[in-house]
């Protein structure tokens, strides 16, 4: 399999934002209960940008640098093996140059600091990202203003930003579109919101698109993902 095939099988191809949103500065949100695969999907989204020769910043709150790096290495290995990618080693070395990981402690993280770091990076000519994934952002303790700040950052830097959030799924905590707490009040700030759910007694994970159109998807608002590679499963297309 070639690099191009990998790009096509990435679930992000199926996640268009709302029709009027600019692709390059959209915000996306991945929600799931703990342990389902939020980080995996974020890494997958980042890998997609990397495979398209774009630069990515991965912000990890509360996880160590080594662990985050491992996510990428493992994920890439699974994908490369699962899809029998040619020249995997070379591609790996090449794309990882375009990735930069910034880790924060839970207590030291805030939006202003992140913005400062990003500006530093661009100014020092270290990296000019077109995609940023933010893992471990605590939505329960964040106010709307911080998220609006991120939105501003996204359009100012021409950056698409993907967040992950842990959800609690009790029915009364949901918004009309089905976006669970703690994000139900801020869903309007995101162009795309997806929910990951494990399917019992089946070896795939459901990706439900709660917000944003599924323009190119042939299977509507529900995608089936392979739990190992987080690629779209062939059989459900």
């Amino acid at each position: 399999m070639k690099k191009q095939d990998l790009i096509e099988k990435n679930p992000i191809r199926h996640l268009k934002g709302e029709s009027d949103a600019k692709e390059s500065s959209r915000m996306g949100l991945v929600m799931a209960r703990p342990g389902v695969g939020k980080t995996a999907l974020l890494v997958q989204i980042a890998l997609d940008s990397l495979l398209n020769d774009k630069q990515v910043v991965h912000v990890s709150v509360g996880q160590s640098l080594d662990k985050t790096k491992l996510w990428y290495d493992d994920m890439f290995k699974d994908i490369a093996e699962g899809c029998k990618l040619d020249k995997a080693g070379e591609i790996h070395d090449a794309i990882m140059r375009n990735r930069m990981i910034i880790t924060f402690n839970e207590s030291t993280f805030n939006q202003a600091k992140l913005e400062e770091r990003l500006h530093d990076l661009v100014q020092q000519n270290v990296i000019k990202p077109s995609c940023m994934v933010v893992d471990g952002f605590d939505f329960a303790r964040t106010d709307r203003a911080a998220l609006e700040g991120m939105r501003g950052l996204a359009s100012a830097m021409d950056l698409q930003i993907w967040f992950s959030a842990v959800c609690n799924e009790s029915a009364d905590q949901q918004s009309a579109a089905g976006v669970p707490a703690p994000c139900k009040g801020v869903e309007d700030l995101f162009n795309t919101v997806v929910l990951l759910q494990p399917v019992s007694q089946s070896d795939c994970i459901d990706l439900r698109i709660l917000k944003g159109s599924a323009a190119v998807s042939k299977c509507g608002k529900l995608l089936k993902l392979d739990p190992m590679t987080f690629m779209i499963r062939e059989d459900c297309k």
Partner: protein
Amino acid sequence: MRDITKVRNIGISAHIDSGKTTLTERILFYTQRIHAIHEVRGKDGVGAKMDSMELERERGITICSAATYCDWKDHAINIIDTPGHVDFTIEVERALRVLDGAVLILCSVGGVQSQSITVNRQMTRYRVPRVAFINKCDRTGANPDKVIKQLRDKLGLNAVPIQVPMGLEGEMQGLIDLVRMKAVYFDGENGDKIRVEEIPAKYKEECDIRREEMLDAVSMFSDELMEAVLEGTPSEEMIMAAIRKGTLDLELTPVMMGTAYKNKGVQLLLDAVVSYLPCPTDVENFALDLDHEEAEVKVSNISSDPLLALAFKLEDGRYGQLTYVRTYQGTLKKGDSIVNVRTGKKAKVGRLVRMHSDDMEEIDEAGSGDIVALFGIDCASGDTFTSGGDYNFSMTSMHVPEPVISLSITPVDNKAQDNMSKALNRFTKEDPTFKTYVDTETMETIISGMGELHLDVYVERMKREYKAEVTVGAPQVAYRETITQRAEFNYTHKKQTGGSGQFGRVAGFLEPLEEGEYEFVDKIVGGSVPREYIPSCDKGFQKCLDKGALIGAHVTGVRCTIIDGASHAVDSSDIAFQLAAIGGFKEAYGKAKPVIMEPIMKVAAEGPSEFQGSIMGSLNQRRGIIIGTNEEEAYTVIEAEVPLSEMFGYSTDLRSLTQGKAEFTMEFATYRQVPKSVAEELIVKAQKKDKK
């Protein structure tokens, strides 16, 4: 014979400047091995006892790990003083191999720095149980709580304080022992009079809370303690047993504190070493059975079993060559004959001594688990000794990294020349990462090692200890060449004009080898190359590996296969086939798309967050790939992979960029292909050099 459960082999490991040598000095004082205290950078010109090398005294750092022995409360403690700089990693790793437990020293102000992370990783690799000691609590800005948090966050240790300091900085009066719930004071000029009293009222509340926390963490390791805690009656013995269990399982790191310089807390640390760190039988060590394909066999630790001892350090002291050994089983007796497993040579144990840095004490025998030194035994470090006979075991071979940097050295006169060879001979035996050879073209002596500082120290030692004055060339990076695709050759070597002729033809191909340096495959069928000349072909190929065609660097990762050839009844010879193989290799090498590889270092730079941008910029300029950054309060750690060739002089640059507030460590990571532009430069340079 000594009771083996009362032996502790411990290391003291830490960041430079966290006061390791001072602490060791105090330990020796309190255990009455020495009778006066000297400071590391002492005004009295005597210097601390453990830093026995002059150079270390001058720089205030510890380079070689001397083994020292002392007694504390009926227990025998062997202390290995380990170096703290990453360039001497092999010394640290070798010391860790023979230790059963370690004390991790941290500065209460500096906390966990990048160096401690490296050392901690090494300890985890060798499964060394450890206790932590937060030193320098008397310094301004001391904050043990911060350090404990860093132990948890940065090192991932389950750090549990078992003491509370009574006052910090200049106000420090003593410590409160949370196990016994007593306040401990250190009286007398040298803090050697210990006074135990009730906890002062103003600390009572804090101590109750801390003890509660400690019991919570510790009772995870003992059901008995858990029940006793619920009933409210945990005994001292129960708590100590549980801490010991957690520590030995590497699940818990008890944290102590104090200040060695101001003589506080050292005796309690010694108590903890005895109570919580393992004795030789508590840890599992493995030997390799050489008769059964190096299968791992657990050593018995029984003194009456056949001998198994590891030489882990050589030293050329003023009393002749000293070999430090650790026995893993059996007994080492004066007058016994022992066998060096590597060479198969027999040797007789002449003098057996227990070392105390520079002085020593003669002994007659050393039981299993002990660390002693031998005189007059010829061996390299890492050799295993056994009692001989059929007992063919070796202690695990230690992982030795390849050198990544080299320099040429030229002696200034004839006398220096002699001394230099003596010194080099000694150093290469002592340190497996330090290598030396003579460049056949320039006739210069080249030394190679793991980093700039590593080589610097040896050059200095040559001057001081051997009076060998040398001039040093610019450091050279150890580049390598390798091939990236398969290529065929079919080469005939023919010289049949006059005299005895030479004839040989070989055909085959070169191909990239994923792992390993070189492989020779013989696929000749039907005897087109006579059997006796096959090794000649192998030899010929190997000769080509020394100097690649691109820049004359060492060639690695090549598999040479021969499939056909021809010979002549009279004119074929060993040399003819060697030359044919060399010709074949050269023919195919150019077609096999050769590339240059360079050593890549994993660099961790750490400094105040405001400098993060400029540090990243500086690494970026040096062709570094920044892997990521990690923010901790006001500090940021930046991890990057940078080619070694770009790292020369970085410490100066980094200091001037950050007003001296940042530091970095680097470790060899991997070899990677150099970018095209750099490769071209290197090739041009190599060609110019050839022309000269």
